[in-house]
């Protein structure tokens, strides 16, 4: 890596599991955990620009209350004392929900927390701040005209990806063990891949978006990031507690009896490898060998599905913003404004066609899932581009970074399939991530395969390389 990388503090990156166990057992206090997190934010965030707000006083008060509960012998939740942060499109009581914009700075403060935030707090987790993103989640770069660019902890000269760039960077840097984000076209999977952390975009509708500022309601998904797979499972189980079986238990079984139920695994090709950098294709090759996934699968119509998602995002996104586009278009991030204005001009019939095509693509994909349990594809065509780089090469052609980093993620979210984004194990090199794609409602199978890949040493989140701290 050429650019400078982030110097981690002496404190290793404790997992959410470990923090909750230690706090509950009284080995550490929630106050000391939160104080250390706030210190990390103070040291690391000026270089990363992942956070847009830090709730130091509220977080310390919550930690104090939790410690008091423990001292009094009262029960605490499974995430006791675990610090977390959320993309700034989730409502946080008492704060305006920015969604990465300037025009919402004067919005009324949220009167209650978003459903997922409330759920995590009820489980004992402690919210420490909100995180940077592309304005209104429309982009893959987190180069925000109002709040600045979020830098990749693996190379501060490179983007973190987007639109949940702050969420991925905060986890990759080890500031917090997990974060919330959202994914409409790839906004969890792209930054997870570029920052080298685990991400989950569950099936459409699986996690509540109540109290989250929308982008394209028919495509929006809530999602999460974590530095390790066990934390991702723990948080997912906490947020989807109505499940019969916890994915945490399923992963444990998978590790103990990997051949109990052999997974039928397909490697996606065609659109999902077209234009990928050689480095990405080479990094994926060992997966097929290790898994015996020698069958290549093509999702017919994926390119058109990506185009349909592109059109629907522009159309629906513009409809949501039409009032503000009429009144104050100049207040938008220019890159987002121009895309929304163009989307507003699309004939309504284009949206009808996009939805009709969604049905056709769903039907075709369902046939593929009658033969496979999980599909694997790269998450991005390349490693993290440099900050400010407007174009990247795909098949020798220069295409917009902002619009095309999600080329492999868009067809999948278009039909709402669950995807676990996992970082390939390549310490010392820029991260590359894969998508582990399941059929609708089959999140547990994506976790099962991820657990197997982790056991084989093929996926793992590598911390950013150690470098000497800058002279002060």
């Amino acid at each position, binding site marked *: 890596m050429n650019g400078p990388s982030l110097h981690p503090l002496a404190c290793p990156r404790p997992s959410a599991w470990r923090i909750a166990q230690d706090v509950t057992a009284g080995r550490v206090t929630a106050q000391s955990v939160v104080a250390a997190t706030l210190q990390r934010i103070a040291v690391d965030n000026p270089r990363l620009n992942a956070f847009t707000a830090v709730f130091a006083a509220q977080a310390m008060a919550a930690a104090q209350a939790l410690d008091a509960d423990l001292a009094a012998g009262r029960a605490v939740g499974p995430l006791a004392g675990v610090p977390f942060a959320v993309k700034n499109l989730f409502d946080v009581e008492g704060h305006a929900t920015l969604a990465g914009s300037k025009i919402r700075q004067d919005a009324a403060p949220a009167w209650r927390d978003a459903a997922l935030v409330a759920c995590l707090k009820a489980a004992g987790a402690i919210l420490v701040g909100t995180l940077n993103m592309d304005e209104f989640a429309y982009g893959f770069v987190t180069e925000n005209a109002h709040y600045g660019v979020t830098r990749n902890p693996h190379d501060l000269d490179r983007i973190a990806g987007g639109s949940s760039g702050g969420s991925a960077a905060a986890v990759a840097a080890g500031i917090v063990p997990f974060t919330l984000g959202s994914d409409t076209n790839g906004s969890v999977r792209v930054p997870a891949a570029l920052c080298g952390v685990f991400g989950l975009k569950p099936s459409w509708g699986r996690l509540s978006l109540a109290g989250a500022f929308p982008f394209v309601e028919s495509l929006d998904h809530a999602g999460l990031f974590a530095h390790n797979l066990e934390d991702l499972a723990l948080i997912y189980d906490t947020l989807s507690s109505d499940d019969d079986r916890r994915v945490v238990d399923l992963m444990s079984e998978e590790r103990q009896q990997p051949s109990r139920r052999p997974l039928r695994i397909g490697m996606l090709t065609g659109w999902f490898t077209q234009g990928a950098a050689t480095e990405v294709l080479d990094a994926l090759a060992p997966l097929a060998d290790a898994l015996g996934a020698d069958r290549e699968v093509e999702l017919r119509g994926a390119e058109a599905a990506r185009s*349909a998602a592109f059109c629907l995002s522009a159309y629906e996104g513009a409809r949501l913003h039409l009032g503000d586009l*009429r009144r104050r*278009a100049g207040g938008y991030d220019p890159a987002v404004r121009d895309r929304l204005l163009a989307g507003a001009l699309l004939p309504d019939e284009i949206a009808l066609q996009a939805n009709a095509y969604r049905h056709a693509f769903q039907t075709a994909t369902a046939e593929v899932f009658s033969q496979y349990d999980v599909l694997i594809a790269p998450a991005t065509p390349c490693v993290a581009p440099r900050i400010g780089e407007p174009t990247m090469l795909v098949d020798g052609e220069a295409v917009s970074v902002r619009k095309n980093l999600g080329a492999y993620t868009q067809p999948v979210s278009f039909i709402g399939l669950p995807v676990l984004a996992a970082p390939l194990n390549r310490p010392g090199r820029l991260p590359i991530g894969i998508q582990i794609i399941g059929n609708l409602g089959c999140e547990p199978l994506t976790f099962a395969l991820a657990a197997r890949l982790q056991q084989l040493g093929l996926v793992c989140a590598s911390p950013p390389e150690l470098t000497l701290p800058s002279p002060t």
Partner: protein
Amino acid sequence: MSRFQAESFLNLGETDLAAFADARAAEIDLTIAEAFRADVLENLKALQAHAQRMNAALQDSGVWPIEGRRI
């Protein structure tokens, strides 16, 4: 429903696309500042290319036109 149909949008050349943008903006009461116009048209052109690709696949899929509608 807009009076602008997909078929006319999909087949527009570059010059006609600009005229379409003006007419469509007037229809939805949207003013596009001159300073933004070139970039908006560039984005609209990209959307047109995506819409063309989607439309071609849709025709092949047999699910379009929806019964009772023709384009």
